């Protein structure tokens, strides 16, 4: 097989790659160097004006980025802890194991926007069932209208929706673990806690890192939950980067500027996630 044949076989994949990955990113970069909006449609060239505006005159973007970081790290940490706990639970031989495995996956199978609408109804402060129940105990928290509680509400919804994903990956990891280390630990007289600390957790570390990074990538795009639950409010207290980019691009139609935001955000995410994964490898995988 000569070079031409090899190239011919690679070509379809290459075309798809260019079509669905390289071209959109290239176009986004080009768009970010233009002032395209509703009134001046077109790819004019304004140099790095949009980037200058972003770095010198847009504190709202950076506030939304730090808020997003908080929400992502919090939700993914909770998802990991809960997901791991549930996976450990159904990894054992418990009654109705299969039933629980399917049950825990249901939230992930539902459509996020629709579920968020339902959650919004649950947390509705005057008409929702959550406060109806809590009012029996004399409390009615402002779930969506207090700037701190609104973040908690978003975290609850995100954790509910995406913990099953974490559960699925970690359960798959647990099921693929070799039995010998556990047998050896049992022979040495290790109890369940010691087994978890010294056998299960270290063996699960590579899978845990993968699961955490995948979820962090997903969580860094929190948008639909914020859009439906709070529209970024009260004030700007729940605005995340992706929601802010959405507002600039598809609400205010500043396409050039939102492309600059998107590209900057992409670069920041690539760098941050690389650092986080290196940190997690150092922390969890001992040589």
């Amino acid at each position, binding site marked *: 097989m000569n070079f031409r044949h090899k190239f011919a076989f690679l070509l379809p994949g290459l075309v798809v790659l260019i079509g669905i990955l390289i071209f959109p990113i290239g176009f986004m970069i080009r768009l970010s160097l233009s002032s395209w909006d*509703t009134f001046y449609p077109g790819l004019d060239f304004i140099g790095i004006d949009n980037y200058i505006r972003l770095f010198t005159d847009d504190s709202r973007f950076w506030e939304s980025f730090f808020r997003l970081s908080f929400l992502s790290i919090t939700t993914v940490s909770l998802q990991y802890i809960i997901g791991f706990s549930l996976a450990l639970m159904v990894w054992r031989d418990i009654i109705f194991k299969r039933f629980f495995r399917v049950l825990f996956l249901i939230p992930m199978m539902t459509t996020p926007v629709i579920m968020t609408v339902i959650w919004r109804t649950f947390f*509705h402060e*005057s008409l929702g069932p959550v406060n109806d129940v809590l009012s029996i105990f004399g409390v009615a928290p402002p779930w*969506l*209208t207090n700037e701190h509680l609104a973040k908690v509400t978003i975290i609850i919804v995100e954790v509910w929706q995406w913990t099953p994903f974490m559960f699925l990956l970690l359960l798959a990891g647990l099921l693929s673990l070799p039995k010998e280390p556990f047998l050896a630990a049992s022979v040495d007289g290790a109890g369940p806690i010691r087994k978890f600390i010294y056998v299960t957790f270290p063996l699960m570390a590579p899978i845990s890192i993968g699961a955490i990074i995948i979820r962090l990538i997903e969580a860094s795009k929190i948008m639909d939950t914020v859009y439906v639950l709070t*529209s970024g*409010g*009260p004030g*700007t207290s729940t605005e995340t980067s992706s929601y802010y980019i959405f507002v600039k691009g*598809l609400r205010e139609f500043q396409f050039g500027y939102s492309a600059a935001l998107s590209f900057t955000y992409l670069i920041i995410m690539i760098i941050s996630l690389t650092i986080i994964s290196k940190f997690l490898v150092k922390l969890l995988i001992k040589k």
Partner: protein
Amino acid sequence: MTLKSYTGGLLAAMLIFAQGAYADKWSDQFPHIKNTGDIPGACSYEATSKKDYSGRTLTISTHAVPVMGEPTALHAEQFSKLTGATVDVVHSPAGDLYSKAMVPFQAGQAPYDIVFGFSNFIRDWMQYLAPVPDKYVNMPQMQDVTKAHQGVASWDGQMYQFPVDGDRHYLKYRKDVIDNPEYQKKYKADTGRTLKVPTTWKEYGEIAAYFNGWDWDNDGELEYGSAEVMKKDDLMYAAFFSRSASYSKNPRTPGGFYFDLETMEPLINNPGFVEALGDWVEATKYVPPGGINFGLGDEINSFGGGQTLFSFSWDDAFVAAMEDGSPIKNKVGAAPLPGAEKVWNREDGSWDIGHNQAPYIVWGWAVGVAGKSKNQEMAFDYLCFFANGANHRADIAIGRFGVNPFKKSDFDPQIYIDHQGWDPLIAKSYAATIVGMEEFNTNRVFPLRVPGIFQFTSAVAVGTSKALAGQLSSQEALDEVAAEWNKILDRVGRDVVKEAYAVGVKLEDNIN
């Protein structure tokens, strides 16, 4: 009897007879118009049935069902039956309507013959829309449209949007409470003030606060003072402009409500707007729990469901409250938006003391025909049919349709008494409220219709929501909005915005 009055009488008799005759023929086939039958006109069922568009396809981009989406689809089906045309209706969420039309417009394409959107899109869309032909502009059906709504659908005298809906903000209140002698006595005893329909925002706040958080309609549930659209980015800026109009629209200082037309300096942080925002922040204390996260749907459900004493925004909450099956049918009243006991005079830099009221003719549903459409004649015929007398009369009776009065003939209270079972007093107050805003009050505020409109309104939503959430004071929040507006002006171009803004100021200053 003069010849003129004799001819008029004869025409009226013919019209009545004609209505009766058509009613049987067309309402049998189209039950939607069963209350009126066909109403004669250039785009009536009878006239439309004589057109033949067999083999041709009309494509329409419209809102999701039901609001505006349902009547679009219904009238498309009717139009198809009458003319033989194939009508494809594509539904999208409200937030996507602008881009759904604008993206192909900018690419020089016309995938839709007809595009539905909001009337404040007009400045951005008009270069891609076909002007409404004189044939339609001059027909009696269009002459029945109020001058204010002809203005909303037009740009500097040229009509680009075909009027199918009319919108304004007004006050809705629980008549059974405000007119209740026991509550009037109790309110007087407790506060020393008279319980009446509020004519100022301060009164509105006082009464709403008094009736907040207790079961005043004895249904076993707590009721609250007011339901308002306060959710960020969900039309909240329109609610803020409603509250601001009376404090900031001074009939003695023409030349701009949002900007000073001379200098294009934003007026959004002047003491009038700040006072209004202060009132609005106060209102967070008398809305239902979670009220600062209420969108339009929540507001309609809250007031329409009997949860609050007051509400103000589009017609929908009132129509919902007055529909059959509503727990508060014939228990609500309509009145002009509250006013203020002072209005900011930007020329003197001081308050003018005295009552001031300014109606807000807010933006609403609008529709245009794509300039590159190859089916323009059919498209305009469809729109004319959509808004014909019979369809319009039937549409305005259905709250979920989102079609509200915009014709002079809509101001006859008898329509609502006969066809919708409204209490005569309520029907009269509703009609009087609307006609007062549309035809008599000359101190009106119109929606901002300039390039970059979404950037301006988005900045207002962000600033005011920060104030409502307690993140900033009213002055700080509006200073931030004004600074953002200046940046937008610099980006879009002050002259470009000024040129467009001047067209709206003409409407506000009643310059023909």
